[in-house]
């Protein structure tokens, strides 16, 4: 009897072990991006969007997103939070997380990657996946950004005025000389 129990236990554990080893696993890829502007300015809302996609064949469990890169680059969170949690993400499913940030100080910033911790299968150890990097962004003062994006009509009128001031006398002189040059030679001898 005991030998049968042992064999049964062995078979059950073997099945369980096989099931755990060859179970379908979840695999997450995460995209991080600023979606509302290409050139952020001071005191302007910057919307960061995280898109988590499960490209594996199994469910990902206990997904935890954490991103401190904004905090280290002097950005303040207006809406949302720098961390988020999902119990599970089914295979082929996308989830998103958005937050609204702002900053007071202009200058060059480097936004590095965030982290996502998850279990690719039940009872498996945690795996880390990194978000994409936004990289270097230049936060310009709001006033200079406004002036840079204006149509600058008065400046263009000034440029046209200065160009005319320079080229019109030249044009008049050239036309005068051409007219003199094209006069018939006989006219000069009529003194």
């Amino acid at each position, binding site marked *: 009897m005991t030998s049968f129990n042992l064999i049964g236990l062995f078979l059950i554990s073997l099945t369980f072990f096989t099931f755990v080893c060859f179970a379908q696993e979840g695999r997450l890829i995460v995209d991080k991006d600023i979606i509302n502007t290409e050139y952020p300015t001071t005191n302007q809302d910057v919307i960061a969007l995280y898109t988590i996609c499960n490209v594996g064949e199994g469910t990902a469990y206990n997904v935890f997103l954490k991103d401190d890169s904004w905090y280290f680059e002097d950005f303040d969170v207006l809406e949302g939070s720098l961390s988020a949690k999902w119990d599970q993400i089914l295979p082929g499913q996308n989830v998103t997380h958005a937050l609204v940030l702002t900053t007071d100080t202009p200058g060059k910033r480097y936004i590095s990657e965030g982290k996502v911790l998850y279990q690719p299968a039940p009872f498996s150890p945690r795996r880390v996946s990194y978000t994409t990097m936004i990289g270097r962004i230049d936060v310009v003062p709001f006033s200079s950004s406004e*002036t840079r994006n204006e149509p600058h009509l008065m400046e263009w009128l*000034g440029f046209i005025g200065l160009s005319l001031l320079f080229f019109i006398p030249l044009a008049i*002189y*050239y036309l005068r000389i051409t007219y003199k040059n094209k006069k018939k*030679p006989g006219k000069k001898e009529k003194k």
Partner: protein
Amino acid sequence: MSKTKNSQLDKDLAEFDKIIAQKLEDTGVKSTKKQQTLYFATGFIASHLINYIFITIFQLKFLEWWLLFIFNSIFSGLLLVLPLHNTTFSLRFKMFTNKEQQIRNKNKKENTDGPSQAKKDILNLIKKEAISFSIFYNLIFYIFVALIFIFYIFGSFEPASNLIASSASSIFIVGFVSTLPIKNQ
């Protein structure tokens, strides 16, 4: 026989060289210092139009970047002397060639290579016309090409780099075009 033929050929070639040398001298193959100063001054003033764009539209502060603006103007003026002179000389040579027959008809007894009042008058007028046309055409072309480089080709550069790159590139293009032959009028 062959010796006499060769000596006659050499004489003809020497005379032809003399005529060409005289023609080149009359049409100003070497620019005078006065002309060079005029070309430099007009190029210097025209480059200030480019500086104006960077100060007003690209918000480059004059007090921070004054050295860059001055260097840009001086180098643009210096480098524009060559294309301005090229265009002037090409035009003078072309116009003088066309008017040679007119000079010969006026002074049938005198040689066109020698000095004559009619030739001097015509050369003077040709010189003025060629210089004014060269300055007018080359500087308009320079500003047009510079605007294309500033807003389209180097538009994504930093403003200071944009200024240097677009100035240099537009002067290069103007210089290159000035070496092309002028079409027959």
